[in-house]
Structure formats: structure tokens, C-alpha cells
């Protein structure tokens, strides 16, 4: 099941990527070519709900809300927008995890996403999320 999801997401990623690159090529060919700064989006992330899962390894399922505070629709931006999760464990360890945002988000609205983070043998205590842009 997990595998199919993975492939699904890869297909999606490919589709998005190729669209993006086509659009970009079109722009390159335009006669009125001039440099513009990549569009900046103001995104915010908030952890909504955390569910602990115990199977072969410990993991958590984090539901998080991503808000688009900009006036424009968040759609295939030139820079990569990611959510960085910092999970603190009961052992005092900090485990990091990141997830790139592929979804489109309307201006001044938000979506709720879900992410499973593997914690190996460590026990969950708290999680923080923030946006980082590449």
C-alpha cells in the first residue's frame, strides 16, 4: 500500500515538474524576456494533531495545516517550499524530517496535510514544524 502511494506521489511529482519546466521554457522563448525575481510566498505551518503509531518501529502521524498568507495562489513556485519537522523524543534526542509542499493553496486560505515520521526505537515527546525555502 505504502509503495503504491509512493509511486503515486512520484507520478504526481513528475507531472508537476514537467508542467513547470514547459511553462518555464515558454517564458524563455518570449521575445520580451527580462529577469524577474522568483515570486515569494508567505507560508505558515501549524501542527494540528499528532497520533503515535507503534508497529515494527515507533512513528508518528502528524496532521499539519499550511496557510498561504500571500495574495497569490501558491502553485508550482520556482523555489522549493518545504516543511521541516523537529521531533523531540523522551530520550532527549531531536530527529529531523522534511516534506516538500506540492499542493496548490489558494490565497489567504489553508490546507491540512498529513505526514508519517519514523522514529525508530525512540519515544515521541513533542514536535515543531516550520517552513524552509530552498
Amino acid at each position: 500500500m505504502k509503495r503504491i502511494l509512493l509511486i503515486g506521489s512520484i507520478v504526481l511529482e513528475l507531472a508537476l515538474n514537467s508542467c513547470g519546466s514547459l511553462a518555464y521554457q515558454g517564458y524563455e522563448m518570449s521575445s520580451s524576456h527580462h529577469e524577474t525575481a522568483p515570486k515569494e510566498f508567505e507560508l505558515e505551518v501549524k501542527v494540528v494533531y499528532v497520533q503515535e503509531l507503534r508497529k515494527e518501529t515507533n512513528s508518528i502521524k502528524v496532521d499539519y495545516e499550511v496557510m498561504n498568507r500571500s495574495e497569490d495562489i501558491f502553485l508550482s513556485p520556482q523555489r522549493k517550499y518545504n516543511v521541516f519537522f523537529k521531533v523531540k523524543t523522551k530520550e532527549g534526542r531531536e530527529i529531523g524530517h522534511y516534506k516538500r509542499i506540492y499542493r496548490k493553496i489558494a490565497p489567504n486560505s489553508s490546507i491540512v496535510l498529513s505526514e508519517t515520521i519514523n522514529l525508530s526505537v525512540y519515544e515521541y515527546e513533542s514536535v515543531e514544524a516550520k517552513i524552509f525555502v530552498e
Partner: protein
Amino acid sequence: MNKNCTLYLLLLLGIFSAVAQNPKQRSIDYYAWNYPIIQATSNKIAFSIDEKPLTISAALIHGNGDKLVFLKSTEGKITLSSNLVTFLDLWSYQTTRIDEADIKVILTPEPSVFEISADKEKKGGKEEERYKGQLKLHSGIKIEITDAQGRLLHEKKLEDYNTLHSINVFENSAITSEKKALELTKAHFMENAEKYMAGANGSVSGPLHYKLVEYLQDLIDLRRKKKSLYVYTFKKKKGFDLSGIQASIEALKSLSDVAPGRNYQKEIEALLLPKIDFWREEISKYDSQDKKQVKVVWGLLANISGAYHALGEDEKALEVYQEIEKLDYRGSYKYLEQLPEEQMVKRKAFFGTDTPKSLDEVGFQGTHNPSYVHYKNFQVGLLGANRMEVAQSTLETRKKRAYLLGKILGHYQYLEELKRLGRKFSERGNADVGFEETDAYYVEVFNRAAKESEEIEFLDLSVLDEDEKIIASKISQDLIDFYNIYDKEISLNKESQDDWEEMQKILDKLLVVLHQWQGGEKDDKRALYKNIDLLADKMLLINNETIRSLPLLETLLEELSSEDKVSYGANPKLFKQLFKKYQKTYVSLFVADTSIGQYLHHSAHQFLKKELKVYYELYRADEDEIGAKHKNLHDDQRVANILSIFVK
């Protein structure tokens, strides 16, 4: 002619047999107490070594004492290795950090001078003057001993002249003028000036180092030091059986085998006291008035006196000496009186009284850590000096950071290297299938390495800055994803056990095909490399390819030497390739111009000696003997220890 030879031989034999009648001296090592001149109230000591640049010059020294400097460099770098403290191995002091010590030893090397002089030699009966040109390196070191407040307790300059070259022949004949001798020696020096000047730099060693160790031990340390006990033995003497005395001396040889320790005094008493009684008994058998027998009596008394001195009972040694003085034999052997007297003077000065107290045999020997040696004025930019003066918590954090970076780099580089090798193996890949035909053992190794690399996802990021945390997470995830695809690709030729595995394989195949279709491999790899470089930049004081390959060296060492990792028998080709990579990495890290040694202060080298020795030994190993002779060398902390010096 033959007759003459025989005569000479007989004469020689006669001389030898005559000498054989006299007592023969033998020396046996033992350890005697050294009573120091300086006594401190506390036992915490520190060493500070000044590394300021010094002048190194070359000068002509004329017979009339004139000195003419003809070459001068102000960039001399003379220092002392931090393992001085292990050589000193003080018993009564504990080596500590400089700010915690109550007594400080400050050592400053003196400027060195190459001195060229001409000595007049007289040989044979002729009044002809001959000269010998000499090139000597005059080096020195200043010792200052202060208390915690910096008050000077003692000061001394030690010097040494080391003869490097001498010339006494020119064009097959003797040199007859001072001028010529000086000229020739100077010419020799100038020819090799670069070599000589370079040789004057570096750590103090040889006789000067030896003098320094001896001087400091004598000056400050209450300890036992190696001394010689002189005993006398006899060969045959007409009418007397001396074999018993000879055997008693032979048996004493074991005295030098007794190692200093808690029971040293008892052990040497057990050896020497019975001998003293035995020699005393033997004396009664000889007539001290007899010209021949007095030699035996003298020898036995000298033995007894020496033995008492060795036991530290110098009063008794002197009593016996009074008996020796009365004998009409070898009156010039004053050392029998001098040694006990000197020791008594030192002892009295130390205890402040004539009655000695018993001393504790065991102190701080074997506990001295060279990392405590403080260096000042060392070359700017060198890492790892005075590391013990950094707070323990900082060192711990640096080590944790180094551990984390080492893990990430180690897995990254090892997978990269395996993948590179994979390409080599698959040169004859099957084009029809579209996937590389790969070696089954190689696939097994890669599968395992990929699985093991997953640990980097769970590394403790708490020792990193916020920025570093994000980059490290990103690298970990991207790295695993990146090699996961390749792992699947090379695993496609594996036999499936059941339908489920077969279906998984089909999915894997789809994934691999999709990935290849997307064609982003190069970009992904570039992005991964960029992030690794970025993380290394943030975390390391010196960031370059060489230093970043240190974790790979350890990973390769682990793979090659661990019994459950890569095996030579299973696939010699792969093993050889990995070993070759190990050797290449070793060379770039420690041998070539790129060596990380250039960034380290020599005291850091000292600190890392043990770690680096392991790497060296595997580097020198024969590849087919690694499994037998170099088993399980991996140490999870080794990279962290080394890398921590380079970590911010």
C-alpha cells in the same frame, strides 16, 4: 718472525693472568631515591612551552674567540614535543592544566647557532701544526620554574653542542692553517645550508632532550632513579676457592630486573641482605695483612659498602668504608665514600634532619597526559593546541557534532564509492533487460550498506544549530532516497522467493523506470553534494575534500576488517577495490601534500597518535591477510575524536 709472535702472545697472556688476580668491577642497575632540590607544597604541576620564532644563525668562531655571523634566519621554529611529560614520568607530581597548577615549568628553546671552528691537533712527534674544521650545532633551552603566582623558584639554561661534520684532510694531506680549516668547513656548510638550517628546526631531541629530562627529574621529583651498584668479583687465586663469591655476584644480576613499585625496598633487601651476611662471613677466611689476600678482603668490603648504599643505608656504608680505608689497597677508590656522603647531604636537605623517613613508593607515574602541556606563541591557524584548556562540555559537544557529521559523510561516501564500483562491475551489462547485470555478492553488500545508512535519519540533531538541523535532515532523507532507487535497480536480478516478492519487484522496476525516465539523477546528486558541502562549511573550521574523506576511511576500515562485513573470500575483486580506495584515501589524508597534518599543532598529532596508528597498520597490511591479522579494528568514536579538532 713466528717465534716473535709467540713470545708476544705469551707476554700478553701473562699480563692478563696478572690482572685477573685483581678484583674485577661489575655494575648492576638498581633504583635509588632521588631527593629533589625544589619542594612544593602541592603536587600539581604544569608545563608551558614557548614557541615564539627564534633566530637560527651560522657563525665562524676564530681561535682568538672572535665570532663572525655569516647567515641568519629569524623564522626558526624550535619546540618541545608534549610527550616530554611521558618521558619525565614524574612520581611526585600530577600533570594538570596550567591554570590549576601550583608549580609551573616554563620551557623556552634558545636560538640555535651553527658554529664553525678549527681545533689545533698535535699528532706524532713532529711539531707540525694540524687543524680540524668542525661544524657544531649549539642549541639550548631555558628552564624557569615558578609558583602559581608566577614567582621564580628556579632558573637554568641547558646547552648542547652536537658535532655535525668535521674536516681534517684536504687533497690527501693534513690541513695546516686555521684559516683553511674554517674555509673548508664553511664551504661544506654553505653547500648544505638549506638542509642544515631545516634540521635545526623541529622538536628538541637527542642529548639536549635527555639532559632536560634528567635535570628536571633531579631538580623537582621525589622518585627512584636508575643508578649503578659497583660490585667486585674474582677469578682464580692460588689456594683459594673463590667460586662461592663469584656465584654470589652472578646471582645479584637479578637486582636489575626488579621493577620499581610498592615493594621495591623489600625486594632489594631480600636480595642484598643475605649477600652482605655471606660476604662478611667470607672476609674472615682471608688475611688482610697478606699482600695477595688483601685484594679479596677489599673487594668484599667494597661490595658490602656498595650494597648498604644501594639499600639507602648510607651511614652503614660509611662505617664499612672506614674498614676499607685501613687496608693497604686501592686508596684512590674514593667513590665508596663520596657516593654515600653526597646522598646523605641531599637526604638531609630534603628531610631537614639526619633521620630519614620512609617514603611512599607509588605516586603519579604512568598517569601523565601530554594533552595538558600548554603551548604559547604557536603558529597562528594551527588546530588542536591547548585543547585541555577548553571547557569539558565544549569538547563533548564538539565530539557529538563530529560524530554526527562523520556518520553522514561516512555513509554518503561509502555508498557513492560502492555505486562507482558497481558501474565498473557492470561494464558487460545486459542491454536487453535494460538493467545492469551485477555481481550477486556486490548486490548483497550494497543492500546492506543502503540499509545501514538509514541510521542517519535518526541521528540526534540537538547538538546542531537550527540551520544545520534542516540541512542535516535534508541530506539524510535525500541520501536515503537517492541510493534507494539504485539499490532497487541492482536488486532486480535477484531471484524472487514467492509471488509477493515478484510483485514487489515489478513495482520496483516501475519505480526505477520512472526515475530513469525523469532523468533527474545528476541534478539530485548535485543538490545532495551541495548540501553536504554547505553542512561541512557550517560545521568545520577547515572544509575540503580531504578532510571530508576521513569518515570514509573509517567506514572502509570497518568494512574490510569486521568479520561480518565485506569478506575477501566471498569476492576478492570487490575486496581489493575497496582496499585500494582505503589506501588512496589514507595517502591523501596523511601522506600527500593534502595531508590534514598541516592544519594540526604537533601536540594534537601526539594526542591522535593512537588513533592514527590503527589506520597506518591497515594501510600497510597485505590485502589477503587482513581477515587474519587485522580483525575488527572499527571504533565508533575514532572519527569523532579526530574530526572534533576540526569542528566548530
